[in-house]
């Protein structure tokens, strides 16, 4: 039994949440059981991911290939657990566990009755499963399917809020995301037309052999994919759906949307760009320059937008737009340091942003106020929540000892290696702007004179979740050891032509 599970672990981590998601609605009446199941599933996923990661680390990064149904590539659908997959799996599991904990016993007022709550959890697990799938898949069409699953569950999560505007935000999101999906599918189609393969490895070989014949088609495919994934991962100026959606969603949903979902699409883009096109093609076509440029614009613009927001969750949402800019910047700089930094930043942002959204959710839930200017004195009344919020903010700004610094450090090293001084400046300016839009919240919460009426820290599971996230932030910032190692190896993998 254990041997079976072990050997099938790569597919197990994907299937398990999907399966539980379908089973869940049958227990809708016993909400405790549902919550327990969800927590257990994410915890199991975390264990599985950890095991896979240790396996990969021991194997010195040789990927574990797993052919679904015994059909090997290029005919069958292949699952490949590489450094990158492990990294992302760990990140997904590590963040979704505290989010699930936070959601426990806490969703009713944001979502509605147990039915709705169960539905929320089902969508949550679906999204988790899809994200895990994105991590391990190495098939282009699988990418599309998983992207669609993720998109639909994201929209579902957004619309699950009983907030009246949530459905509108969800609809906008759905329309744009579907447009994006169409473009992704189109891009994959073009690639398939040229190469005749859907398995990434084979498609890559073929593409690099024949691309000179169809440069324009290759370019159009790249554009389709860029815009498609760009809109889903909220790359400025395609982010327009994000602030509404993320601020309207229930807080745990916002956390997972901002923290993980956006990164899932980014991981897909990374896979498509680096595993299919390959670094040589990216540089020949100048895609990296476009990515760099868009990333820089996103960092600045997202931060400036965030500065102008007064609603807490919207500010955090725009902050996500800015942080996605770092990811694209790192992608565009295209060297091992910058990719390491990009991956690490992705993970640290996932943790940080989840922490921020959860803390914000706790504050909004207890005080009922969602404007920053109304939060005076929250820091005194909800010390632990605000402490977590502060740790996450400081980390996002990029102070040493916290996770954000490590990612930015490598990004800076990468931009130095690329000789891109403007990128360095943008990274730093982004940090300063980040401080400019996050510290006022802390200042208001701790130092403004008039305290809010009556509120206190949330319940035990929520506290555990928050503290867990804060602990991640600090662990990643001080002893990132194996995790950073994974990111480094993944970055090198991406740059090596197969």
């Amino acid at each position, binding site marked *: 039994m254990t041997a079976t599970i072990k050997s099938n672990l790569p597919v197990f981590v994907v299937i398990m949440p999907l399966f539980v998601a379908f089973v869940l609605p049958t227990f809708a009446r016993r909400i405790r059981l549902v919550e327990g199941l969800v927590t257990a599933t994410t915890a199991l996923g975390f264990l599985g991911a950890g095991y896979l990661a240790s396996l990969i680390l021991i194997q010195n990064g040789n990927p574990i290939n797993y052919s679904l149904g015994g059909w090997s590539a290029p005919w069958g659908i292949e699952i490949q657990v590489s450094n990158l997959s492990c990294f992302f799996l760990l990140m997904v599991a590590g963040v979704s566990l505290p989010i699930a904990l936070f959601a426990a016993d806490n969703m009713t007022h944001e979502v509605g009755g147990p039915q709705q709550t169960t539905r929320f959890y089902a969508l949550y697990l679906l999204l988790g499963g899809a994200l895990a799938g994105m991590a391990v898949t190495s098939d282009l*069409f699988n990418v599309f399917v998983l992207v669609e699953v993720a998109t*639909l569950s994201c929209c579902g999560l957004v619309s699950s809020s009983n907030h009246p505007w949530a*459905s509108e935000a969800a609809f906008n999101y759905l329309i744009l995301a*579907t447009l994006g*999906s*169409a473009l992704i*599918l189109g891009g994959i*189609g073009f690639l398939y037309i040229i190469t005749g393969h859907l398995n990434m490895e084979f498609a890559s070989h073929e593409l690099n052999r024949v691309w000179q014949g169809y440069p324009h088609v290759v370019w159009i495919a790249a554009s389709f994919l860029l815009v498609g994934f760009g809109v889903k991962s909220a790359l400025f100026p395609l982010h327009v759906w994000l602030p509404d959606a993320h601020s309207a969603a229930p807080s745990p949903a916002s956390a997972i949307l901002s923290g993980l979902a956006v990164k899932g699409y980014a991981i897909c883009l990374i896979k498509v760009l680096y595993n299919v096109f390959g670094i040589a093609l990216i540089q020949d076509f100048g895609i990296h320059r476009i990515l760099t440029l868009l990333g820089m614009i996103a960092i600045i613009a997202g931060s400036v937008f965030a500065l102008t927001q007064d609603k807490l969750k919207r500010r955090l949402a725009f902050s996500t737009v800015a942080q996605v800019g770092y990811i694209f910047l790192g992608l565009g700089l295209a060297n091992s340091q910058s990719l390491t930094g990009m991956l690490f930043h992705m993970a640290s942002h996932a943790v940080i942003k989840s922490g921020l959204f959860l803390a914000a959710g706790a504050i909004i839930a207890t005080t009922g106020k969602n404007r920053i200017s109304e939060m005076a004195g929250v820091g005194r009344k909800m010390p632990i929540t605000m402490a977590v919020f502060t740790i996450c903010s400081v980390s996002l700004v990029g102070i040493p000892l916290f996770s954000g610094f490590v990612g930015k450090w490598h990004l800076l090293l990468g931009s130095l290696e690329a000789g891109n001084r403007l990128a360095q400046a943008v990274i730093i300016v982004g940090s300063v702007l980040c401080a400019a839009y996050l510290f006022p919240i802390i200042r208001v919460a701790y130092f403004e004179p008039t305290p809010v009426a009556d509120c206190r820290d949330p319940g035990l599971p929520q506290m555990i979740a928050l503290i867990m996230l804060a602990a991640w932030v600090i662990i990643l910032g001080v002893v990132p050891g194996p995790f950073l190692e994974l990111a480094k190896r993944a970055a090198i993998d991406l740059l090596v032509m197969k």
Partner: protein
Amino acid sequence: MKTLLDSLMVNYPYFAAMILFIIGAFTVLTRSNLFKKLIGINIMESAIFLMFIAAGNIRGGAVPILDKANPKALYINPLPSALMLTGIVVSVSVTAFALALIIKLYQFYGTTDARRIAELKKEVASR
């Protein structure tokens, strides 16, 4: 001009897909009725499906059912068609979900006109 015409004649499914895509996009952009937007999106997706399936088509190819008698027969590529089946399923579920959301929106705003909803929302925000 001649080459353009030639390629048009040979690759007409692709051009059809392109035209469909543009029609779909135009609909999404210009129609303010939410249903029509949704239809526009469906048209765009159809364009992609068409492109995919056309890519799998081989002129003179037979239906890809293995014929033991004629092993060297030319089949069309079955994979794209199979994939598009999945694609259509996805598309349908998206459409269904979108329709559900439109209903919710209608319940809330009392209209399915995007422009009107935007105005109403602005009023709410300003209040």
